[in-house]
């Protein structure tokens, strides 16, 4: 646990303005980072010989619609030498859903960022190849946003058989 505290201390020492808060929940620490400082924070955590968070375990986002700031990008870092997890959270408002890429620090952020772009529509500035990764390239919308419908289709039973058939003329061949 003390390594996480030390990481927070080092981050605070180097870039005090970029870290508005540190949250702890169930023994997990999440450092809130301003979007413009995320790449530098990651570099610091990776390169500092006392920390060495060398593995980007996960990168995802959460949509808090309709609250503001609407999005939070979540970075789960792991230090293989020290066996410790650390989470960074970057809140983003819906008007400026942009965050610099961390591809230069962790190469495997490439696809994770593409996935977040695909699913949430968050732009990663400076990304080398920001295309959709999971959905078809001509898909409209970003499925994991909270204002995107689940796309539930009514199930056809004997009592509503004809009604559903009317909605889906293409399904009868």
């Amino acid at each position, binding site marked *: 646990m003390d390594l996480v505290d030390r990481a927070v201390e080092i981050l605070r020492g180097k870039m005090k303005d970029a870290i508005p808060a540190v949250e702890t929940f*169930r023994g997990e620490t999440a450092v809130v980072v301003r979007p413009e400082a995320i790449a530098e924070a990651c570099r610091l955590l990776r390169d500092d010989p006392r920390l060495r968070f060398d593995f980007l*375990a996960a990168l995802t986002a959460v949509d808090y619609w309709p609250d503001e700031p609407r999005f939070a990008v979540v970075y789960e870092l792991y230090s293989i030498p020290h066996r410790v997890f650390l989470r960074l959270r970057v809140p983003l408002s819906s008007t400026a859903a942009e965050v610099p890429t961390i591809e230069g620090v*962790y190469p495997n952020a490439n696809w994770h960022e593409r996935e977040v772009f695909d699913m949430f529509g968050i732009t990663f500035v400076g990304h080398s190849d920001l295309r959709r990764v999971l959905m078809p390239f001509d898909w409209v919308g970003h499925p994991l946003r909270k204002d995107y419908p689940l796309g539930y289709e009514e199930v056809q039973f004997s009592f509503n058989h004809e009604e559903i058939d009317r909605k889906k003329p293409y399904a009868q061949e």
Partner: protein
Amino acid sequence: MAFEQVEVTVDELKHLVSNQALEGETMLLNMGPQHPSTHGVLRLLLELDGERVVNCIPDIGYLHTGIEKNMEAKTYLQALVMTDRTDYLNTVGNNLVYCLAIEKLVELDVPPRALAIRVILTELTRIASHLVWLATHALDLAAMSVFLYCFRERELILDILEICSGQRMMTSYIRPGGLWRDVPAEFEPAVRQFLRLFPARIQQYERLLTKNPLFIDRTRKIAVISGEDAIGWGLSGPSLRASGVDWDLRKAVPYGGYDQYEFEVPLGAHGDVYDRYIVRMEEMRQSLRIVQQALDRLPAGPVRSDNRKFVPPPRSELAHSMEALIHHFKLWTEGFPAPKGAVYVAAESPRGELGCYLEGDGGPRPYRVYFRTPSFAHLQALPILAKGHLVADLVAIIGSLDIVLGDADR
């Protein structure tokens, strides 16, 4: 053959291929999504110079199921059935990581017997998954008989899962706070029988492959990756350990009672396809050790937590306890609320680090579930690994990464 000419324009992918491709000096070739050796519906756009792979651009998402979005619309318990179907070779392990995340989020304790049975089943699933990997990997390299042998043993494990849960693959047997029910009396003899049988069977497979010159020629010095690069590209599990990085989440961040068992973490030296094979074969032996220890020390007692806020009471109580009836009704209609907050739990799946990021908002439904899946990370390293190798080697490389497309696309 399933290799097809590309029809899409390359404009959109221009930055990913070399200049020769645009001038027509190298060939662009589409491989998949229906191809026998891509282990599912993986599509690769290959830039080829003769037989050599110049660039490899994976295109995934052909099995995107919307599981994360769909889980948000269900209660915590209902969403459990979705987790089985992400990585369909590691069904029990998926249940485990999701239940661990819920248990961490709501602070729920699990009885020791349930922990031990979870470990046994997870390790058996790991063996089953490795068997499918070995079967298909060897089949891709034209060793047909290994496929038949591996599936013979896999049926034994599926039978054990069926004894416990009634389903061969999608068990949903691990529940938040413990297990669905206790294992029946046939469970222990069945596992012991498997433990007796299986070490000799591993030797059978190794006799077919480990010193087979054809197999060695196809796998040695293919797709070499250094430990440092492997970490940078997010490889985990056996694929990372084959590069000599000693990192197994069961030891590094012990979860679910793994710290009570003795086992070794097999490491490779060269980080090539052959080492990944050796590491996985050894892992099967270590899994057997863990199962043996867990079975020998299987404690008696309940298999579900008695915290009635989260775990439904046994049906026998419903007839004579009003409180049990209320809990039963509440849990099965509304579900249980989880506090506002986020947890991340990582577990060692047969492929690598399987992480679950779970966020609650105080209500009975998960606000956000995210699965960090090893296949997704491994696939993005495929272009690096495949560069400069022959098309025929590509098949071996895909096999050695042990990808499951359901796991990558979710």
